[in-house]
Structure formats: structure tokens, C-alpha cells
């Protein structure tokens, strides 16, 4: 019993310490933000890696997500609801929820793991210490470009994914559900709200920052060689996926109860 309580206490202490360290990292990112012009080139490299590098994955994921959304919607309508609403359901669910969250989870897995593994390897091979020893701020040089690239590219990739998912839904509707293209598009237009696009973008902006932050945080915390690098990558992916789902709920509450109410 005593052991259980003390291990619970140690766990809580560790969690609080981690939160504190994460907060320190956020403060340091904010402090070096004015130096962004100095790291434009590094940021562009990261943007290419996150955006262009994730495209094949995003194309497949979003295309099939849209298709599945259309097929599932038609199945649930069961001739009670007119076919044109398939377009409405696919459009709104993709823009508000499926596009940002699935892109966040899929790209987050890929990008978060790669950031954590790269920074983790640099940490255990003293490359980060070498930067610091040369009076180069590792937060500015390594963390800032990744953070900014994540905040920009995840929304950009999400827009791309939204378009592809809606197109995937169109192909499924026309190809396998026997709907006409006009019916799908008219349904899509019927309930279209610009605020849906905005809410999706705000979500993906937050997800992008969460993914990059978790990757950087766990990468910089790495210790203990190859095993440590593996652990950091896992922690980065797991924590960013959890935080995406949790923040998705909080954002949904916030955006639709307050901002777009």
C-alpha cells in the first residue's frame, strides 16, 4: 500500500516536473520568436520536409477517408434522407473534424517521431552541446524552425487533405453509390459555412504546434543512447496523438460555444 502511494507520488512529481520543463520550453520559444528572420532558411527546409514529405501519406489517407465518409453516410441514411445530404455530411465533417484531426494524427505520427529522433540523436551525440558551446542558441537554431514549420505546414497540409477528402467522397458517391455529381455538389453547397473552414484551420494550427512542441520537447529530453532515442520518438507520437484528441474536444467546445455560436 505504502509502495503504491509512494510510486503514485513519484509519478505525480514527475508529471509536474515535465509540465514545468515544457512550460520553460514554450517561454524560450516565445523569447526567440523575434529572431525568426535569422532562421528563415532552416524553417523553409523544415516546411519542405513536413509538407512535401507528408504528401503521399496525406493523399492516401484523406482520399479514402472522404470515400468512407460518403459510403457510411449513405448507409446510415437508408433511403430516409435524400442522397444530396451525403455531400453535406461529407463536406462539413471533413472540414470541421476529419480533415484536421486525421491529418494531425497521421502527419503528427510521422513528423513528431522524426523531430524527436533527430533532436534526440543530436542530444545523445553531444551535437546540441556543441551548438551551445559555440554560442548558438539551440532553441533558436533547432526548435524555432520546427515549431514555426509545424504551425504553418499542418494547416496547409490540412487544406490539401480537406480538398482531397471531399473529392474522394465525390468519387465514392458517383462511382459506387450511383449518385450524380450535381447532387453531391449541391448537397456540399447547401450547408457550407465559411466558419467550418476557419474552425478546421484553427484546430490544425493548434495541432501543428502541439506536434512540433512534443517532438522537440521529447527530443531534447533524450538520454541514454539508441534506446533513449527510440523512447523519445514513441513518447512524442503518443503524447501528440493524445493531446490532439484532447485539444480537439476543448477547441470544439470553445469554437462552437463561443466563437462561431
Amino acid at each position, binding site marked *: 500500500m505504502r509502495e503504491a502511494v509512494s510510486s503514485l507520488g513519484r509519478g505525480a512529481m514527475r508529471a509536474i516536473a515535465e509540465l514545468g520543463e515544457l512550460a520553460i520550453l514554450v517561454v524560450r520559444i516565445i523569447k526567440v520568436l523575434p529572431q525568426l528572420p535569422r532562421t528563415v532558411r532552416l524553417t523553409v527546409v523544415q516546411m519542405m520536409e513536413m509538407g512535401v514529405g507528408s504528401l503521399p501519406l496525406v493523399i492516401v489517407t484523406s482520399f479514402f477517408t472522404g470515400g468512407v465518409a460518403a459510403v457510411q453516410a449513405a448507409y446510415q441514411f437508408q433511403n430516409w434522407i435524400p442522397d444530396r445530404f451525403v455531400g453535406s455530411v461529407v463536406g462539413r465533417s471533413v472540414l470541421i473534424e476529419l480533415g484536421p484531426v486525421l491529418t494531425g494524427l497521421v502527419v503528427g505520427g510521422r513528423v513528431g517521431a522524426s523531430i524527436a529522433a533527430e533532436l534526440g540523436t*543530436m542530444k545523445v*551525440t*553531444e*551535437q546540441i*552541446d*556543441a*551548438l*551551445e*558551446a*559555440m*554560442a*548558438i*542558441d539551440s532553441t533558436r*537554431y533547432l526548435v524555432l524552425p520546427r515549431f514555426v514549420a509545424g504551425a504553418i505546414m499542418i494547416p496547409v497540409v490540412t487544406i490539401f487533405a480537406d480538398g482531397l477528402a471531399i473529392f474522394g467522397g465525390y468519387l465514392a458517391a458517383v462511382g459506387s453509390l450511383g449518385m450524380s455529381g450535381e447532387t453531391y455538389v449541391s448537397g456540399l453547397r447547401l450547408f457550407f459555412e465559411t466558419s467550418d473552414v476557419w474552425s478546421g484551420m484553427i484546430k490544425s494550427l493548434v495541432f501543428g504546434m502541439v506536434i512540433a512542441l512534443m517532438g522537440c520537447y521529447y527530443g531534447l529530453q533524450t538520454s541514454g543512447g539508441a534506446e533513449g532515442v527510440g523512447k523519445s520518438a514513441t513518447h512524442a507520437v503518443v503524447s501528440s496523438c493524445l493531446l490532439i484528441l484532447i485539444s480537439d474536444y476543448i477547441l470544439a467546445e470553445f469554437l462552437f460555444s463561443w466563437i462561431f455560436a
Partner: protein
Amino acid sequence: MSKEVVLSVQGLEKSFGDQHVLRGVDIDIRRGESIVIIGPSGCGKSVLLRHMIGLHQPDKGAVYVDGVDVSHMRRRDLYEVRKKFGFLFQASALFDSMTVGENVSIGLKEHFHLSPEELRRTAEVQLDLVNLRSAIDKKPSELSGGMRKRAALARAIAMDPEIILYDEPTTGLDPITADVINDLIRSLQKRFHATSITVTHDMTSAYKIADRIAMLHEGRIVFDGAVEDVKGTENPYVQQFICGKAEGPIQTV
């Protein structure tokens, strides 16, 4: 011995968890000298070296560089102090995403407004000093251990440092390559009159590059003297260490 003290470590203590690594280190280093700090593996030599450049914060005590306490300094001021230093890391710590030339010139690129041509020219000059100009466009992964060490050495001296810190410069190298590195350290010392602080457990290297040798044991400096004094000393710790004996006051694990 009349030269001014450039770096002074006073009462330095550092623990990691239950492990008391440094238990009160006091040492003064004078401008232009080459001091070697010896001691068994894991005795805290590298930790001491990292304190000198503010990569670790001490639990107690302080490190003064040119009379300024670097252990309790704002980050921005610390970066200014670090520009006086060159640091050769034990495993070279070259940036594996960059070429050797980019590695050597990264400090200059970040701190001065130089054109790509100027940066390349500087990298060439630095690499010439370590006989590695031909590897300027290679990635660190394409180099042997000795070449990586030389590239890292070129990077450490690229910013024209006043103080160069060497963390186990010859560890993991064959005796001939180790000697090449020792010669390089010695020639750089003579050429640029920089203060060198080396930590090592390689006595051949220590004798070759040192003006003065200090020994760290159980978190304290247990010996500090000129190279000739080391050979003649009756200090049991130094005797055991330089003769490489398992029996003696130093307990091996």
C-alpha cells in the same frame, strides 16, 4: 607562473541524483598555459570541463572566466563568454547533417555576416591546419575516427578562441593517430598562444601536451604540478594512476 589567471574554479560541487561527482574543486588556470587534468574514467573530468563553459550549473561554488562568474549568468551574457572558447568534444560531435566545411564554418556563419565564399575560404584555411582540406565537402559519416577528430579540432579553433577545452582528445584513436592529434594540439598552442585545458586518462598524451598536470580524484584536485613533478611525485594517487596499477588508494569498480 606570473601570468594572470584566466579561468578560476572555486569550490565547485555537483551531484547528479545520489552521485556526488564534484566535491569541491579548486583550480586556477593562467593565460597561455596548457594544463592537463588527469583522472580515472568517470571521475568527473568531463563534468568539470562542461562547467567551465556553462553547460552545467554547479550546486555550489563558481567558475570565473576573466574574473566573471559564468555559473550564474544570463543566457545572453553566457553566449558572449562562450565565444572566447573552443570545445573539442570526446566523440567529436560533428553535425552529421552538414558537410565538414559547413561544420567548421557554422560558428562564423552564425556570428558574423560573411558571404558563402568567405565562409568556404575560412573553412579551407582551418582545415589546412589539420591537413583535412580534401574532406571539405564530405559528410562526417564518411570520415574515419581520426579524421572526425581533426575536423572537430578545426571547428573548435575556427572562431579563434582564447581558451580551448579538449575532452579526451585521443580516446578511441590508434597510437599513431593519437600522436598526430597531440602534435596538432601542441602546434596550435604554440601558434595561437591559446590557453588549453585538456582532460584525459591517456598519460602519453598528457606528457606530450601539458605544461602542468592536475589530478582529479573523488571530486577533488589531489595533485597539481609541472610535468617533471608528476614523474617524481610520491603522491600515491598519481603514482597508481601513471603506473596503471590495479592496487592502490584509487578503488576501481
